[in-house]
């Protein structure tokens, strides 16, 4: 990492006497504090939390309930029951490329012990969604109460601009059932609006990977996970600036 070099170029800081390992530890600490971890791909919510106060949350989580999801990534075993439950619940066609959620696989060949990690992904119900900005007909929009990004299928002309705009590959065109673009809506129409507490995927997961909840409620499990500081919490691709509502944690 060239950050080491950056450090040694700093003069008169007494760094000559610090070993490389110590430097690295110090560096890591600094990164944890600023909230940017591993070259910008991890983003800790901790930093925003420590700056914010309970009273700020309404502003920070503008929806009520502010639905979101946390993935306990280390627990995922790639059994794909979430994917099956999702497809069955939400009438997702069984065709290539047609899915609302999937599991990505990451390999770290020189890791000690387990080398594989599984990363579940779905629509991040972004606070600043790009899909809704680019849609010409408001066929996709952010629900004012829950913050869920929904589809008004009858308005979709199938230009697929939203598919390109989405930084999370969360959308596909359903030619079979809807004749419109489809995406995860946290099971809004099929479960949550009917009073269920959990999405189909979260309920189907045997390993407690997917935790669904209300981020604006400080008693909610999801609130507590996102705002603790013992384990890292991050989001995917923070650089795309859409302010996602799906968080990841491990350890």
């Amino acid at each position, binding site marked *: 990492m060239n950050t080491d070099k950056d450090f040694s170029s700093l003069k008169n800081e007494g760094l000559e006497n610090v070993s490389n390992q110590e430097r690295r530890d110090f560096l890591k600490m600094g990164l944890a504090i600023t909230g940017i971890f591993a070259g910008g791909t991890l983003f800790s919510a901790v930093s925003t939390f420590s700056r914010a106060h309970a009273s700020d949350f309404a502003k920070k989580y503008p929806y009520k309930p502010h639905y979101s999801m946390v993935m306990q990534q280390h627990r995922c075993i790639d059994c794909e029951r979430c994917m099956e439950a999702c497809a069955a619940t939400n009438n997702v066609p069984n065709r290539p490329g047609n899915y609302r959620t999937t599991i990505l696989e990451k390999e770290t060949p020189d890791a000690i012990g387990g080398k594989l990690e599984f990363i579940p992904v779905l629509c991040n119900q972004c606070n600043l969604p790009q899909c809704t*900005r680019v849609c010409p*007909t*408001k*066929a996709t929009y952010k629900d004012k109460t829950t913050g869920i990004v929904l589809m008004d299928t009858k308005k979709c*002309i199938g230009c697929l601009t939203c*598919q390109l705009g989405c930084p999370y590959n969360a959308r596909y065109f359903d*030619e079979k059932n809807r004749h419109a673009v489809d995406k995860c809506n946290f099971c809004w129409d099929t479960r949550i609006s009917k009073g269920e507490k959990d999405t189909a995927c979260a309920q189907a997961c045997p390993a407690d990977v997917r935790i669904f909840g209300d981020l604006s409620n400080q008693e909610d499990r999801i609130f507590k996970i996102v705002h603790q500081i013992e384990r890292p919490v991050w989001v995917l*691709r923070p650089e*795309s600036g859409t302010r996602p509502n799906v968080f990841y944690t491990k350890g």
Partner: protein
Amino acid sequence: MAHHHTTPTLNELVSGVADRLKTAGTGFYLMVFVSLCMVLVATGLGLMTMFKGHEAYYNVYREVPWGILIAAYVFFVVTSTGLCLVSSIGHVFGVKDFMPIAKRSVFLSIATILSGFFVIAFEIKIPWKMAIYNVISPNLTSNIWWMGTLYGIYLAFMFAEYIFLLLDKHRPAVICGFSGSVAGIAAHSNLGAVFGLLMGREYWQGPYMPIYFIASAMMTGCAVIILFHILGHKVNNEQMTPDMQRALEVTTKIGILLITVILFFTTWKLIAGAAGQPGGAWPIVHSEVVGHHAFIFWFFEILMGMAGPLVLFILSKGRDMKLMLIASVSMVIGIFVMRYNLVYLGQALPVYYSLGVNEFKEMLNYFPSIYEWIITAGGFGLTALLFLIGEKVFDGHKVEEH
């Protein structure tokens, strides 16, 4: 050449058209036949894919949803805007040298934008819904919405302009031409913004995109003006008037200037992409310059689209029609590939590439299916068909002296 000082009656017009069609050679009819077939086959297949679903016929997919038909659409609307802008230099802004090319260019700008609408109708999944919901549910933050709306307005102005030019009503033609240019520039910069404002697509991203689009539209306009004016004279078996030669000479000069500008833009885009390594657009720029896309980029976009024509135009001095014809044909092909590169390469880097997951370690591939090729060819067929018919119906788009 007949100089009408009064507007001809309908009967005179019809018999004139009939005469010209009767005297046209077999070559003309063969070309009409071929281009008509291209349009019909494309329409038939396009409608079939529309009703049976694109999935089975097109090679676009979830991660690369925009294919060659979008590229062709971009190509045609860019060409149309370019024709409109370059031709307005003459009859809207009064630069006399450009006057002779006005009529044919305006006609062609209509033909090319119709071709653009033709191909996009087969790429959008449910195009008729656009006509309804673009109107009753507009999203004003959407560049696609603005582009569609503004191109609609643009088309209306260009139509009106051509009709006024035909009727020899100069003032309203100028007003429509000016309004058309304004709508065209606005529409066009929105097309640039469709790409340029997509966050997380580094290859496209950047505020310079709309400017790049306008400059490259005018470059394309020059190529197409030269191409179709030379072809038009061949179709009509006519010698070029000195005025026309002069107009093409000036167009060639502007073409040379604009090619240089776009080469400059392209160079800086590559440098910017390379400077961002290893993140950002670097993997794409790498594959474009030295990787699996390099031949297509260097041979078509750079050599055929710009460098070759640049040399030929300079050698031709704007007077050697043969060199100019070769240069403009080469340029049209090269520029088409340039649009294809823009559309495809912008999608080639998976959004999860930086995550390093097994599914998205490689650049995404796309190659058009036979159906996509045929429909694209249909777009070119439509331009050719309208051009050929226009030459006979409107008598070589002659511009009268005032």
